[in-house]
């Protein structure tokens, strides 16, 4: 994958890694919203009670039902979704080779250019 900056828009296209990760990020954000909208209101409506009768508590598999349906169950659903999403939906992209030291080299080059210009400018005057 070429990463050389070029102003030749004709020969360039939007980076697929950028497009894929952006789409994936939106879906993940959606998942977060769904998790929030499921867990918090469900727990609030079913788990915030006053004057609970200790003999009449509802449990599912030994844990309070509001915890089971508000947290434990959506947690499993989120896990299943996560696994499906990561293994079958997320695109396998080429992240490119690392340009170790390139940023520094670029800045050193720029620094020298500026210095050279300054020296040249100084000579002219």
């Amino acid at each position, binding site marked *: 994958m070429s990463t050389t900056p070029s102003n030749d828009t004709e*020969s360039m*296209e939007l980076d697929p890694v*950028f497009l894929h990760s952006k789409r994936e990020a939106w879906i*993940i954000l959606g998942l977060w919203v769904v998790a929030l909208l499921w867990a918090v209101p469900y727990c609030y409506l079913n788990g915030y009670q006053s004057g609970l009768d200790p003999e009449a508590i509802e449990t599912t598999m030994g844990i309070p039902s509001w915890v089971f349906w508000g947290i434990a169950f959506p947690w499993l659903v989120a896990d299943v979704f996560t696994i499906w999403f*990561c293994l079958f939906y997320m695109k396998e992209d080429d*992240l490119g080779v690392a340009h170790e030291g390139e940023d520094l080299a670029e800045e050193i080059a720029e620094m020298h250019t500026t210095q050279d210009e300054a020296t040249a400018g100084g000579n002219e005057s």
Partner: protein
Amino acid sequence: MNYLFDTNSSLPLVLAADGTNAALVSFLIYTAAVFVLAALSNRLLKNKSFLSEYFLGSRGLGVWAFALTFAATSSSGGSFTGFPSKIYTHGWILALWIGSYMVVPICTMGLIGKRLNQVARRSGSITVPDVIRDRFHSPLLGLMAVSLIVFFMSINLVAQFKAGSLILQTLLDGVTVFENTANGLAHAVSGIPYLSSAESPEYLLCLLVFGIAVILYTTYGGFHAVVWTDVMQGIVMVIGVIIMLPLAISQAGGLENTTKLMAKMTPPRFSAEEKGGITLTLNQPRAELLNIDAGTWITDEPIPDSKVPLLFRVTRATEIPAGETTVNEVKVLQLTTLDDIERILGRRESEDFLDGVRVSNIDLEAYAYGEDGNQQGTYLVGPGPSPSSSNGFLPFSLAISFFFMWAISGTGQPANMVRLMAFRDTKTLQRSICTVAIYYTLIYFPLVLIFCCARVLLPGMEGDPDSIMPRMAVLLTDNIQMGWLAGLLVAAPFAAVMSTVDSFLLLISSAWVRDVYQRNLNPEASEKTIKLLSYLVTFVVGTAAMIVAINPPKFLQDIIVYVGSGLAASFLAPIVYGLYWRRVNAAGAMGAMLGGFSVHLAMYVTGYFVNGSFFKPYQLFNFDPIIIGLSVSFLSGFVVTKLTAPPAEELVHKYFYTTKATTKAKS
């Protein structure tokens, strides 16, 4: 295996010595293993681009290394001390408090992971400030990022050093060798002004042992040492939880039974810090001084008109001088649940009781929320009992805030971002997210179950809730006659805190070496200088933090919360914009960073004036400062960008475009 009603079952206080010796042994083995890993990592530092290897592991992390270093770094010491103690104190509501962990792995790794890794490769960035500086081609922005990271992380490092030492101290409490060494150390440093003013000799010893170990292995081994020890630490943590879960459930008589018993529980009464407590009167004066340790049980006949026996547990050690019979204002907590009281009285022989004593002048406080008749079953439902807040532990708005806190603010942590720059390829990322998702499921929800069971198995721990984890470890393993196993279980908390501290340490030293020195002061420094400087700075930063932690700041948990949310408010928006928005420019990123940082800080400063403490931040619209900080950060980044000129086309091309496949084929 129901040990609940077995009056002969062995109990933690009696057998604590066994368990904590196991803690000492496991700590030593563990530390030795960490050093072996550091030595192996150091060998990797040869023949590679030094900085990229030392601070980023040459971007070559595979699934296990990446997944576990990510998971272990995010779960700080709090996961195994603060969190269990919260579950114990507030009950089932902690399931909702931690609920967003169902999406934390996919959010913190998936939202920015792939793209951040790509951008860092494209620019050759090694640190988070590097990425910001390169992406926006702005040295000024890079410097701002470095300053914020150094500011926040240095505070955090000191706080984490303290947390680590406190955990180690809790674990080793009661081990004879440890106590003797601590006393020896106290004697040795008694003439040295700064050292002798440490909190306690035990704390100082733990800090030195813990600090020196972490500093040495991190300095010597660099990123790979940190990652490999994280992997080991991550495995220790999950094994600890997996062993504890079935033991806790079966010994508490099953989950159903635990929930039923918890439904009947009412919060204890407790003595206020300054005044109040109970008066103890001995039936007969004793010839010697009587020491009454914290954790001692005291019982007396029920008061008139009540059938419930009085049962107290001492929360602060006190003494009755020889020949005297009375001591006033003994700090205690009083159990109020009949089942719990009967259970403790039933195993009186094996518990630590002070006999021959009468109780009078009971002056105790009730929980601010959880004791009224209409709050029955408070450990089972929201908002959960709270000693100090009359709104309960987790009111609705706070529950929403925590969904932001863990999932969104976790994405904005630079320590996490650095890890996202280090994985090898997308396949690794995809598999790692799944691994971390399963890993967190195996740790966090089971912890809620385990420490709900702890309420039933170990009543009356509210006076010292931070040691509930080691106490449970000892109890559970002793009950099955496998005391040695406690060592493995109690290794989990210090594994957790170690894996956080080492990452933070490396993050700060990379900021100094790479971002301050190499990129601003001396870009043409030789590889040899950089190498020497990396070792030196890591060592010096660690040592400095350790020295500050000798007399550490108070409000430990509050500092950690402030730093975590402050970092997210400053870094999340600039990074997200930089990765996903072509139009954003350096001014916009600066606006996002400064906007988030200052509004978040303003909430805390306003809290100082309105609520009387910096650590009681002002809650605009009832929301945590993190939500306000993040919103302002994203908004100001957007507005400033729109008001200023678009970024250079060249920069946009470099990070958002690639050469067309057809053009490539032709060429």
